[in-house]
């Protein structure tokens, strides 16, 4: 067993930290307040190769391992989770599926520009009445012989309004239940696609989240990803990896809030001494440090399993559950340590707390993770 990071993994972590501190921190409060999409920041994310860091160099990606991805996601999420969610969806939910299941033509057309950051990808699974319960898809893709005809609505789509590429999940043979689901790789500007208004969210306000409507959209046959009926497997396998991304995001929210609280506790004085010297605060920080370290181990273990080619679904569910719960607890305590200052925007921790809440909900709620984990116990 080895807990040492490689020289290269440390370099990637430091590069992500430099990027976050130098290029994301300034303006993060305003972007959140005004729900402004971080266009320039996402462009830089692409230039630095973070948007396709897990994609093979053969397809213009960085060819980095998942451990490095966890480290980068943590550093970027410490500062701006609206940016890191775009990175996570592009890498884990869209690029991964195309690299794994896509044809060479699809990789050429869609994967390469996404890996370079020239195009952004969105993952269209959730519906008004089907989130993690993916078999209840109402969106249909009827096989018309030479094309599929798609009708339906997708909800809560990260990058829904800005993405150029959609990875769409829809039912082709509802009678076959999950064996009748297909995945498609499409241009987001196809005729018949319309995008709903920007969701006015509690947190991660700068990432653009939309509903996407499909009204008699013709999708060419060659845009189906994988085999006929393989869509459910593609969606579930993508989410297994996606959970590592969101777990790392939650970890970053927790460690970012902890770092701010630790610094504040050494500066703020009450009753003649720094509040860190009051045991009530020192013990809070000790608890936060322990839980963050445990969450980090969960994330790195899941990433390591993935890099070793071993099953990681159970580990990624545990990482997502534990890191999200830790993020909520730690960010709330960070606000508490900041007192009144924690309740105002300029100290950042209230934003991190609002953002942490989403990590308990999206890409499978904490309750869904427990379903995945408990089913795995009997497997």
């Amino acid at each position: 067993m080895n807990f040492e990071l490689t020289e290269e993994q440390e370099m990637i972590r430091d590069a992500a930290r430099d990027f976050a501190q130098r290029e994301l921190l300034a303006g993060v409060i305003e972007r959140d307040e005004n729900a402004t999409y971080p266009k320039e920041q996402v462009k830089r994310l692409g230039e630095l190769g973070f948007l396709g860091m897990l994609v093979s160099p053969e397809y213009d990606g960085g060819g980095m391992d998942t451990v490095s991805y966890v480290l980068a996601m943590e550093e970027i999420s410490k500062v701006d989770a609206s940016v890191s969610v775009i990175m996570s969806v592009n890498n884990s939910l869209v690029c991964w599926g195309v690299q794994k299941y896509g044809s060479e033509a699809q990789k050429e057309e869609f994967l390469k520009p996404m890996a370079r950051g020239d195009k952004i990808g969105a993952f269209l699974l959730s519906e008004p009445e089907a989130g993690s319960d993916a078999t209840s898809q109402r969106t249909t893709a009827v096989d018309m012989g030479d094309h599929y005809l798609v009708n339906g609505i997708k909800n809560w789509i990260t990058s829904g309004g800005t993405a150029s590429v959609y990875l769409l999940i829809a039912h082709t043979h509802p009678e076959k239940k999950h064996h009748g689901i297909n995945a498609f790789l499409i241009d987001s500007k196809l005729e018949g696609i319309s995008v709903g208004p920007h969701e006015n969210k509690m947190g991660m306000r700068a990432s653009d989240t939309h509903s996407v409507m499909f009204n008699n959209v013709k999708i060419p046959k060659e845009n189906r990803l994988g085999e006929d009926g393989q869509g459910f497997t593609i969606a579930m396998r993508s989410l297994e990896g996606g959970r590592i991304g969101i777990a790392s995001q939650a970890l970053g929210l927790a460690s970012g809030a902890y770092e701010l609280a630790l610094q504040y506790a050494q500066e703020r004085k009450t009753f003649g001494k720094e509040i860190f010297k009051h045991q009530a605060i020192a013990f809070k920080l000790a608890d936060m440090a322990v839980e963050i370290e445990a969450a980090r181990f969960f994330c790195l273990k899941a990433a390591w399993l993935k890099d070793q080619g071993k099953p990681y679904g159970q580990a990624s569910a545990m990482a997502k559950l534990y890191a999200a719960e830790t993020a909520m607890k730690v960010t709330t305590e960070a606000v508490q340590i900041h007192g009144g200052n924690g309740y105002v925007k300029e100290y950042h921790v209230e934003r991190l707390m609002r953002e942490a809440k989403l990590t308990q909900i999206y890409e499978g709620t904490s309750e869904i993770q427990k379903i995945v984990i408990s089913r795995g116990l009997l497997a």
Partner: protein
Amino acid sequence: MKILVCISNVPDTTTKVKFTDNNKQVDDAGVQWIINPWDELALTRAIELKEDGNNSIDEVCVINVGLSKCDATLRKALAIGADKAIRIDADPIDAYYVAAQIADYLKNNPFDIVLSGIESSDYNGSSVGGMLSEFMDCPAISSMTKLEIENGNVTIHRAIPGGKQILELTTPFVGIVQKGITNEPRIPAMRGIMMARKKPLEVLSAVEMESLSHIVEFELPVAKASCKMIDAEHLEELVNLLKSEAKVL
């Protein structure tokens, strides 16, 4: 045209400095090492010049005199865009030792431009560049804030008190780099980090030589005294404190 950039491996600027061995050694436990910020600016400018098609720079090489712990720093220089790294395997004692080792390498490996940061954020010797130029018998341009090369013609700006001096010169020379030479250091991109795996990092033996100085002891600066705020209406209290505590009256 070839540029050599001298790289110091220094503790991160936020490091809490501690000493061991009766205050004769810096305690490097837990220290994160970085490229000396002024050297990083020099490297960034060298890479910018190479990328700009209007000049004929075909190689940017970095050199460091240090032990294997410096390899990560050199690898970062390669990831940022240097073509090749040289490490002279020695634990440098002073600036003269470093300059002499680099000068020895330059005897058989000539470069047109050698860049070095004006200071290093660890020992702040500010002397490697000047010593190198003496060894090389070529000009040293100190406090360089701009470096332009066009069709082989070199133009340099130097920061001087109250203004700047603009020079034209021929190679070879040593440029001692000040802030302003470029906007800010580069963040290595994933592609650069990946390419750095295949770039050469050559480790050479040091030439035998004595250092000209030895360290007796390090001392940390005295901690700043705390500040006492006296209400403007209590001038008597201020006078008393100046007499009894500060003892300046």
